[in-house]
């Protein structure tokens, strides 16, 4: 199974050793992590640790992480992950760290499509969840437009900097009409 994917604009690929610096550039940008309840990185060693954790989680079959590299420039403009694989329930959670300039419907759909294809078609998962903060001004509407369903909220999910975080839960099912239509159209 080939975990590395490509789209018209991007390589969606696993990280390698030379990606520590671009990963740090990405995850030290406060705007990239603004709606993720986590702090932006402040030293490159954090990116090295993060890369190590990504490998460990993949080897443990708990998660898979891809960097999103722009074909033309070679810049890493994002990271996408399938986390919390639940092989019994057939589910996983999506997470996307994306530079603000790339946060538009077409780009997000282009990045998501091969990852969702892998999740639903190759890994035979049934339910993909996405947890968002309600303060996120862009992603909720974008996800709804792409075909995700708003299931409700997970209140007080965890504490970050003294605040209890409520997550909004969005889901896409393998048999959702929106996904089946996307498969036929070969895009979201």
């Amino acid at each position, binding site marked *: 199974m080939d975990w590395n994917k490509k789209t018209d604009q991007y390589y969606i690929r696993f990280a390698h050793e030379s990606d520590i610096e671009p990963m740090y550039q990405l995850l030290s940008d406060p705007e990239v992590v603004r709606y993720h309840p986590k702090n932006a990185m402040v030293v490159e060693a954090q990116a090295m640790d993060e890369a190590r954790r990504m490998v460990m989680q993949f080897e443990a079959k708990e998660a898979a992480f891809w960097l999103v590299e722009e074909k033309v420039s070679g810049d890493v403009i994002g990271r996408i992950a399938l986390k919390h694989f639940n092989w019994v329930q057939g589910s996983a959670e999506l997470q996307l760290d994306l530079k603000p300039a790339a946060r538009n419907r077409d780009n997000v759909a282009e990045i998501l499509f091969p990852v969702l294809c892998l999740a639903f078609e190759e890994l035979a998962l049934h*339910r993909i969840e996405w947890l968002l903060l309600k303060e996120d001004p862009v992603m909720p509407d974008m996800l709804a437009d792409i075909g995700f369903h708003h299931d*409700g909220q997970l209140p*007080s999910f965890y504490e970050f900097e003294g605040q209890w975080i409520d997550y909004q839960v969005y889901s896409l099912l393998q048999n959702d009409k929106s996904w089946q239509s996307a498969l036929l159209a070969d895009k979201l």
Partner: protein
Amino acid sequence: MKFVPEVEFSTGLLRPLREDDLPTIVKIYQKSMPAGQSQEAVEEQAKRLLNLAVQMAATQRGLMWAIESEGVMQGMLSLYDWQPTTLKTLMKLDALESLSVDCQVQCIEAAIEFLQGKYHLRNFSYQWVENDGEGVKDVFIQAGFTQQAVLRDGRRTGQDSYIDVTLMSRILETE
């Protein structure tokens, strides 16, 4: 060492599971016994459940109480996915028909009060699926829980079958 504390409430008592509870545990779980499963298998599982209940409580991953009313075990109240760091847990109530609704509500409220006081837990959730019946959902509503989400196909029931999971929760104010 005693890992499961006793909690009294006005019409009953939450207490650790005991060996002599086995027939009642079997009775509770028989209502959802999968087709083809033998009585012996269920009793064996009930024994394992007793051991696991102690292990869960000792490691603070969960807890299982017998619900006693009028001196008789009439149900179980359990905690799963106990997360001491994020102060949350998932509750499960299994009541025999003989246990009144009032008593079910009171035992949940007493458990929450105890867990808040001793462990500072503040986020209590309950996952309802259609097979559980509306009754138990109403019990949790009476105990202060509100519906937060319906996780579509959130639980697998077979190779290609899934059911929705209704997530209910009660969040206590931070101390």
